[in-house]
């Protein structure tokens, strides 16, 4: 959460769009990349990111640190994350409230955590360690959840508030994850938003999801493979009207569309941000 974070919408930097972006230099506020895709020695990933970084602010989003692993974060991974952060100087570094590594095996999913005091102590310790190594505060993202554990002791929003206070981290509020989890865990997304510790939010994510199964008992799945849903746009409008502009990412990671389609989604988020900014200017 540095002072020069762009209060605009951004897009994921996808190999499908690399050449177009470098050649046409679209008017996009910033790009986000997954840190793990830039941990190789060289080649096209670094070639294109270096050139994109020269043109745009970059946000670094990690998916492999496994901050919630009881057996410790992914060994050696924090040092690799720091190397990428040092090389590309992102305006923000973020990770997930999740775990993905167990006994050295990487499961390639953002797995859920039981919201208990013991989990909170563990995650706070790991976030503090990450921030110490990286030399900066990071943002932690609220997860998409599909299930609940026996014996949970607090709501997700209370867990995140306590985590931010204890560790000094900021929060990345993924509104699609709110919509997905709200259906899957039967809570009201508006209540979630109203109880979320919004004072810690440094970035917002928007994305699309899939609906699995019948109408009677659907599960929503966080797929990032389609346009942002109307419910997510509704929550976004409400959030930004209340908080004012925040860096906002449109995530579209599989079935990646042609650039103009993604660009139009980003422009839509930008128009919400602009309206909120103008509203604030009038009120001032």
């Amino acid at each position, binding site marked *: 959460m540095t002072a020069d974070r762009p209060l605009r919408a951004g897009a994921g930097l996808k190999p499908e769009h690399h050449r177009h972006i470098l050649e046409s230099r679209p008017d996009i506020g910033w790009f986000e990349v997954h840190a*793990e*895709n830039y*941990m*190789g*020695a*060289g*080649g*096209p*990933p*670094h*070639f294109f990111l270096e050139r994109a970084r020269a043109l745009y602010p970059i946000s670094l989003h990690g*998916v*492999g*640190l*496994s901050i919630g*692993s*009881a*057996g410790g974060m*992914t060994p050696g*991974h924090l040092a*690799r994350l720091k190397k990428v952060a040092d090389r590309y100087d992102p305006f923000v570094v973020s990770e997930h409230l999740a*775990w*993905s*590594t*167990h*006994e*050295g*095996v*990487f*499961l*390639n*999913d953002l*797995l859920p*955590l*039981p919201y*208990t005091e*013991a*989990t909170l102590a*563990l995650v706070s310790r790991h976030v503090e360690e990450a921030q110490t190594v990286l030399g900066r505060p990071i943002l932690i993202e609220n997860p998409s959840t*599909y*299930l*609940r*554990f*026996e*014996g949970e*002791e607090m709501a997700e929003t209370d867990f995140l508030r306590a985590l931010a206070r204890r560790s000094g981290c900021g929060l990345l509020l993924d509104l699609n994850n709110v919509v997905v989890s709200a259906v*899957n*865990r*039967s809570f009201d997304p508006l209540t979630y938003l109203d109880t979320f510790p919004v004072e810690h939010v440094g970035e917002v994510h928007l994305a699309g999801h899939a609906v*699995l*199964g019948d109408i009677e*008992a*659907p*599960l929503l*799945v966080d797929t990032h493979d389609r346009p942002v849903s109307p419910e997510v746009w509704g929550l976004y409008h409400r959030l930004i009207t209340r908080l004012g502009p925040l860096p906002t990412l449109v995530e579209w990671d599989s079935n990646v569309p042609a650039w103009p389609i993604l660009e139009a989604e980003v422009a839509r988020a930008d128009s919400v941000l602009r309206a909120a900014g103008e509203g604030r200017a009038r009120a001032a």
Partner: protein
Amino acid sequence: MLPLDATQQTFAHALLRPELQVPVAVAEMVGPTRERRFAVHRNNVKASLVATLAAKFPVIQRLVGEDFFEATALVFVERHPPRSPVLAEYGAAFPSFLGTFEPAVDLPYLVDVARLEWARHEAFHAADAASSSIGSLAALADDDLESVRLTLHPAATVVASAWPIVSIWTTNTLDAEVRRIGPDTPGEIALITRPDEEVFVHLLPQDADRLIAALADGAPLGEAAASVPDGFDLSTGLALLFSAGAVSGLLEGMSE
């Protein structure tokens, strides 16, 4: 409430093994059953890892078909799950696994085609370096030519096979119409390079792998040239190495 490490232990095991039950820590809730909820994670893990293997071994997938590939990849994922969140590093063991996978024993060329595909993948992510031109070699005096050592480009890799792997790869990747490759087609040696942002596959002449192995070991050019049989066309072989971008530097006047 179980300790977190115990919960994660059963969760992790049940994710990779479909015969195991959903962990007891997963609560009963209104709506979808515990099994359906847990199945989302099981599917995320397996589908994403099968997809990452398919992206690295597209010719293998094409040769065996999508269903066979998926079944094969699922067994591989269960037996050799990733050990790092950097998925670019996942799949190095897939070629040798294909050699031991019972249902694939009738397709012995798969192992070497997979080695070629993995070499392409590694070349994509290899360290960057500028390539040398053959002009730098031509500029040397004859004496220096004998003693010069070639530094191979970090992305340059050789895959030698008893099977026509370059023909198989090429016709399944680049050709507009797939060529028929008969059982009497001789073995081939592939040279994989990535001089800039693009990965290339070249067909090397027979025995060129011995020359490159000697150069990679640090042998001076004169000694490396002696490691190939008489009749090997050294100047053509070297011209191919340089034009493919497989050489990144010359070291002169170095002694043992």
